[in-house]
């Protein structure tokens, strides 16, 4: 039985699986003027706060998440700076991503449940030594009941998410051929090439036979006597 081919990028020949940074993701808080419970108007802005362990500031490489009907994303970070040492006052928030569009047409479904990555090179400022992250979600369209982000993960620098790791054979697409030194006593090249060709044809035939045998078999050992269709 042939299941549909798995998509590339799910573990085949990749380096060790990257670990997202440990963090606490709070549930989104809607920003609304007026009483949240009685007000009929839907809030179009929500904020998700992500707290990182205070002793382990993060050099941010990538933010990965699954969208759930958010149209625009702004990301602000709080960084620990050398000048902050010893100071107890509030640290400054800096915007590192502004109004990133997730749904190009907010009244319609496009992009509404897609997976996204935001990389450090897309950010407006340096995102090293980050101690807190705040994601500001905007959904200007009133047709959606809820909007948020799911499966939020932050990846530290030095570890790369699945997207940037490649199978080793991709970098070996063009193997270098070493031209051989043919000086000195060698057999007749015509004869050798014909023999090699014949050998190749044989290996190709064997390989082709294997492929043909795999495709096309819908039965199990010649038997296709089935009961009823399964619902699971």
């Amino acid at each position: 039985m042939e299941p549909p081919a798995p998509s590339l990028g799910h573990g085949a020949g990749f380096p060790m699986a990257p670990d997202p940074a440990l963090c606490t993701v709070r549930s989104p808080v809607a920003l609304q003027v007026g009483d949240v419970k009685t007000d009929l108007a839907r809030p179009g802005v929500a904020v998700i706060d992500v707290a990182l362990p205070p002793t382990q500031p993060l050099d941010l490489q990538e933010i990965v998440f699954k969208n759930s009907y958010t149209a625009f994303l702004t990301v602000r970070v709080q960084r620990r700076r050398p000048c902050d040492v010893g100071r107890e006052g509030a640290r400054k928030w800096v915007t590192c991503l502004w109004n990133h569009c997730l749904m190009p047409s907010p009244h319609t479904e496009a992009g509404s449940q897609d997976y996204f990555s935001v990389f450090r090179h897309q950010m407006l400022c340096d995102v090293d030594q980050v101690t807190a992250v705040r994601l500001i979600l905007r959904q200007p369209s009133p047709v959606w009941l809820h909007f948020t982000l799911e499966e939020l993960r932050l990846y530290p620098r030095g570890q790369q998410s699945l997207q940037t790791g490649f199978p080793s054979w991709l970098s070996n697409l063009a193997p270098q051929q070493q031209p051989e030194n043919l000086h000195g006593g060698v057999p007749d090249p015509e004869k050798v090439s014909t023999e090699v060709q014949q050998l190749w044809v044989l290996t190709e035939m064997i390989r082709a036979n294997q492929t043909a045998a795999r495709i096309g078999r819908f039965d199990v050992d010649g038997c296709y006597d089935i009961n009823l269709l399964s619902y699971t």
Partner: protein
Amino acid sequence: MMMLEQDTGLSLAIAQIVQRLKGSSLHSQLERQARGSLHKPEIKLDSLKEDIKEFLKTSGWEKRLQNAVYSELNVFPSPCHPAAPPEHMKEPLVYMRKAQGSWEKRILKSLNSMCTELSIPLARKRPIGEQKELLNKWNEMGTDEPDLSLFRPVYAPKDFLEVLMNLRNPNYENGDQPSFRNHLGLIQVPLKVKDIPELRDYFSELGLNTGQLGIDDSTQVPPELFENEHVRVGQTVLTEQDSAAAQQYVRQGCPTALRAELWALILNISNQPEDILYYEQLKSNVIQHDLLVDSLIYKDVKLTASNDDYYFVFEDYLYQVLLCFSRDTSVLEHFSYSSATPPKSYIRGKLGLEEYAVFYPPNGVIPFHGFSMYVAPLCFLYHEPSKLYQIFREMYVRFFFRLHSISSHPSGIVSLCLLFETLLQTHLPQLFYHLREIGAQPLRISFKWMVRAFSGYLATDQLLLLWDRILGYNSLEILAVLAAAVFAFRAVNLMEVTSLAAAEAVLADLSTLKVMPLLQIFLFATVT
């Protein structure tokens, strides 16, 4: 600033295409050609790589590889985000996946109950005598008159329309109060569809200033103005064997004499010996095993194509294609990008044991009422069964599967329905309102046209001109535009009807319609 992301996306796409092509016969053929070229005088050892690349280019093999890569790009969607699970590539919206799952369950129940009621097994190995008999009358299966009265189609398009009408996004404001959020048509999901300015841009080659077959080849127009040159360009495209050029070319229509070869070039079908062998293997599978779906196919052909003035002559071809199609496990590959899932079963007595799990039918596709009409028009172009078969299979896994599965894809039937309703509502608001008021929602009439890609409704030459554009634009959206254009054409008569039945009568006969002028007027000559 986005460069790295674009690069990684591109590299991922390249990696996927390479992996898919690696196991193909083209790959082994290229290797064989490269090794065979080793003893040619122009191949020098110190510039081996460059010389072999040059040889592959001049012998036409590089072009074949280009065509194969182009075919992969057209068929498979761009790679998803690595964090996305495989079902996300099938269909990104969760509620649509669920709806498709429920619909499939209904179909399975229907098939199972047919099986138990009629006491006919889903699959049966034919006794040797029966196998011989079938082999003898393989070319004239139409002469058979089996008793099909007890069989009924698993579903008809109107059952599917009911399901689509009830599709709701749980996160969408589906209030009972009429508001701007509720669509006035039957489809209530907020998918993005193109408006007329976007369609004009998308279908720019159909514009008033571009020559078209179906308009500029009519008898009143001297052929020197467009037709002769267009045919000449078509012949050049065929000589060059370039898929991408062919796809661009057919946007203006195919000359009848070149159509078969051009479509084969676009779909990358070359009918190699191994393809013929594969078809013969499928034929032997048909001989060996009898499937319940075979009866459904017989019934469908008898009910639809055999009754059609244009297609009844091809009845035997239809059986030869559709029966083999049901046994073809290579069709299972398309389920990785289709929202549908193939039905599963277990060998008798081995329920639940995965090593005895099989798909049913082997290709995972249960035919519905009208399915054979996807094949019928192709019989005008291809007469060799194995080539006809491959063309149909490729058309199915590229286009037709989207017409009977629930997905958010722009060429999926849900988007086409919404596109049709939106176009009609925006550009013929009076007509739309009138039809709605008399209980004749326009989609109820046009749905069957779109599900069948207009096969059996248009005259054959017009249908083929329409399917030229489906191939040329690699999209089914033109079906929705044509449906709206037909309503626009018959608007005056439709404004006078007072019931759904009367509206159906006005739109019952499309066989005199000329497709290209209708499309051109609707897209480019209507005041917006």
